[in-house]
């Protein structure tokens, strides 16, 4: 193998590792469950914000839509996940509207504090038209 082929072999290997890094799961996950109908909350828009501690402004990090399982993978990259105050906004009003129903809650915003970004955090939303709950999972 000549020197060029040897170097190219190294570059291909690095690309493979970079792809692996890009598919590392998000340290922050969510799951929307529609308990009124006993189904995952699919096609719900969710938005993740991080609070700027100096200006007290919410900075938008990610906009996503839940999949058929009510999940939204790739909310944040591991290297971007720092300690701080985050907000997950769930567009619940729009969700129920698309199902032809009203909802008591036009949207739900869950504000939470991440003290140890090396941990995994799960922030689900269990929802009906007239109630919701959330908990800190892992």
């Amino acid at each position, binding site marked *: 193998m000549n020197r060029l082929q040897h170097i190219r072999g190294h570059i291909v290997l690095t690309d493979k590792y970079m792809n692996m890094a890009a598919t590392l799961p998000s340290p922050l996950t969510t799951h929307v469950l529609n308990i009124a109908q006993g189904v995952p909350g699919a096609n719900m828009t969710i938005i993740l914000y991080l609070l700027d501690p100096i200006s007290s402004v919410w900075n938008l990090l990610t906009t996503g839509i839940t999949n058929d399982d009510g999940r939204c993978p790739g909310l944040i990259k591991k290297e971007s996940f720092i300690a701080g105050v985050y907000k997950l906004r769930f567009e619940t009003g729009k969700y129920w509207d698309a199902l032809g129903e009203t909802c008591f*809650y*036009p949207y739900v915003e*869950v504000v939470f*504090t991440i003290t140890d970004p090396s941990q995994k955090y799960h922030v689900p939303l269990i929802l009906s038209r007239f109630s919701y*709950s*959330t*908990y*800190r999972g892992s």
Partner: protein
Amino acid sequence: MCSVKGPLTTHVLNTGDGVPAARMALSLHRLDPHMTVWSLVTIGTTNEDGRCPGLITSDAFTPGMYKIRFETGQYWESLGQSSFYPYVEIVFTVSAADQSVHVPLLVSRYSYSTYRGS
């Protein structure tokens, strides 16, 4: 003292300890539809039973979007404990047909839930 229940009530329960959440600060806000800003309506503190009577009068309880902000982080801090949530805001819609709306909060250090009661 008015004996008639107000049109909007709340009840905060500390499900971690199985007690009413007493002395929790909270505030009621109404969304101004024209300016899309939140206006403060009332500031209060829950009593020993976790309730906060007199949030709003019937006359002032017009249809629209409201928000109750519960200072849960401060509450847990006063008990010497940390919490996942620095505060909880419940945003809800009131229609003309709504006579009596109950917005309780069941809260622990790592979870909370709410529902629309009457």
